[in-house]
């Protein structure tokens, strides 16, 4: 009887095993560079390219295990880079939440003539390669006198964001219309409806947009490289680059810096994972 009820039980198990095997391989392949990075950050420079490669974080077994970390943190300007990155990424992420929540809400809920065309236009910007826009962007920023300030890295995020607009439009559209109607009948203005009713309900999607924007800006190399010259304005990716320059190649410092620069992203993601997932799944808010 049982066999008849579950004729595919054997097959299902095989499928599951294959699935896990594939996922395991994928996990190893993606995690390998991180593990390598972590190990290298605990090595002495001369062991980095030793053949055959060693998986031993040698420094951990000495009396100065965090030597590389101590060096970038105290003798190089890594603290400054870290602070700059945190500031720029935070501001840019705030900007994205600001711009795309307004834009997404307008596209989802307001009656604007031609709004679907406008929305398509916003989406299209996501498909234009940076290489095409970066030179005009540079010229504009130079024209504004913003070169060698944080403004080129922050201000554009307050203006537009294709991904966030798309995501929040979907999210706002998934929230019941009755909330807005009820608030309108009770005398709320369109802005109050947005601010007091829909924005709080979109919290998971707002967090998701914030986190994604933060990560993107944290990782950004091209724009800081173009727009920032002064050492005290440099961000983490620029700082990391300076460990491997024409004159020196401190791979162990680079790896230690990379580990540090990855930590905030991992922490942020772990703290907000629940919201981020919910933000992607949509507004299944219960009344």
């Amino acid at each position, binding site marked *: 009887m049982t066999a008849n009820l579950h004729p595919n039980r054997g097959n299902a198990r095989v499928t599951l095993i294959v699935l896990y095997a594939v996922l395991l391989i994928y996990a190893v392949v993606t995690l390998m560079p991180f593990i390598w990075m972590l190990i290298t950050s605990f090595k002495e420079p001369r062991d980095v390219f030793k053949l055959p490669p060693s998986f031993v974080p040698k420094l951990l077994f000495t009396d100065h295990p965090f030597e590389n970390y101590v060096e970038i943190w105290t003798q190089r300007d890594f603290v400054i880079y870290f602070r700059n990155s945190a500031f720029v990424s935070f501001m840019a992420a705030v900007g994205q939440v600001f711009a795309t929540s307004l834009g997404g809400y307008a596209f989802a809920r307001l009656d604007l003539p031609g709004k679907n065309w406008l929305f398509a236009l916003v989406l299209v910007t996501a498909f234009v390669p940076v290489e095409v826009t970066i030179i005009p962007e540079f010229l504009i920023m130079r024209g504004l006198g913003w070169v060698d300030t944080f403004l080129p890295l922050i201000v554009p995020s307050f203006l537009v964001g294709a991904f966030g607009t798309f995501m929040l439009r979907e999210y706002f559209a998934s929230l019941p219309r009755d909330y807005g109607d009820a608030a*309108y009948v009770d*005398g709320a203005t369109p802005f109050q409806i947005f601010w007091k009713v829909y924005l709080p309900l979109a919290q998971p999607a707002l967090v998701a947009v914030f986190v994604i924007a933060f990560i993107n800006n944290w990782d950004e190399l091209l724009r800081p490289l173009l727009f920032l010259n002064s050492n005290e304005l440099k961000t983490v990716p620029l700082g990391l680059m300076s460990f491997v320059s024409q004159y020196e190649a401190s791979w162990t410092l680079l790896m230690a810096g990379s580990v540090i620069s990855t930590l905030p992203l991992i922490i942020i993601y772990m703290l907000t994972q629940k919201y981020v997932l919910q933000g992607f799944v949509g507004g299944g808010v219960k009344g």
Partner: protein
Amino acid sequence: MATLSLHSIVKAFGKTDVIKDISLSVEDGEFVVFVGPSGCGKSTLLRIIAGLEDQTSGELRIDGQEVTGKEPIERGVAMVFQSYALYPHLTVFDNIAFPLRLKKNNKQEVKARVEAAAATLNLTDRLHHKPSELSGGQRQRVAIGRAIVRDPKLFLFDEPLSNLDASLRGAMRVELSELHQQLKTTMIYVTHDQVEAMTMADRIVVLNGGILEQFGTPMELYHNPQSRFVAGFIGQPGMNFIPATLIDMGAEQITAQFAGQATQNARVDAKGHSTGVSIDVGIRPDDLKLATDGAGFAVRVRVLERLGASTIVYGNLADDTPICAALDGLVKLQAGDQIALTVDPDAVHVFDTGGRALPRLAAPAL
């Protein structure tokens, strides 16, 4: 407290007219129910009154003031939605306070009014819970609370009880009627449930396909339905309609023939009609009785539903026309029995082929 009047209201979505020329006026303090089948335009009409939709043409007055183009808040209306539309991120207190806080009332006053509303609705111990922690009936009451704190001139309800189970719905019906007696505010209530309409309304508006079929008290609609649609919609179980031919017309009554040779007299005014025309004879199940003396028309019993106080008999006439009768609870019958049913000619309704009712000559005084 307000009067409401609609003059030739039309609403089109694209090319389809959803509301077709509706005029009616509601008295101050009345409880009026809009009833009709799904999709007949009840919600649309309510949303027009609320100011959530603009009518395509026609005039809308509240307290004699033209309100077309005015915001809901200027109209002084409050609305309770079928979904309740309680804000899930706010507590019961904050939900009820929401309309008050929009108007910059001071804190003490907001608190006092919210607490008063909560007391009226038995919600005092739920004030600091989120809507998701409430039962269906409590959510319903919060939605009503949010409407009554505003002290509106006109309450609008869109199927507020349709998400509740049957017993709770019965209890909430009574609560709403009591609330109306207490507040004496004009209320417009939309439902597709004729029982709600009959039990709660001062007057009922029957809508069908965007057309106002009839506007009257529950008893007027029950005893003097002006159309076949209203007759079939109001009353439980629904009226029987039997296709018939008008074979004799007198000043006091007519005679209809149906199901082969069966005849039935009806006290209606057939002015303007002539013998030989097709009509529908309408008989309420409650008006049918078992014939004793060989009179009446033959019915073969198909199914019996014993409800205790009454027994609902589903059967067929000689030509298989289905018929339903509500007989005595203890009636000794079983499926397959051949019986004869009669009806008092005073109680018979007659409809012409266009579905219009012929005026009754012996309807009870209302």
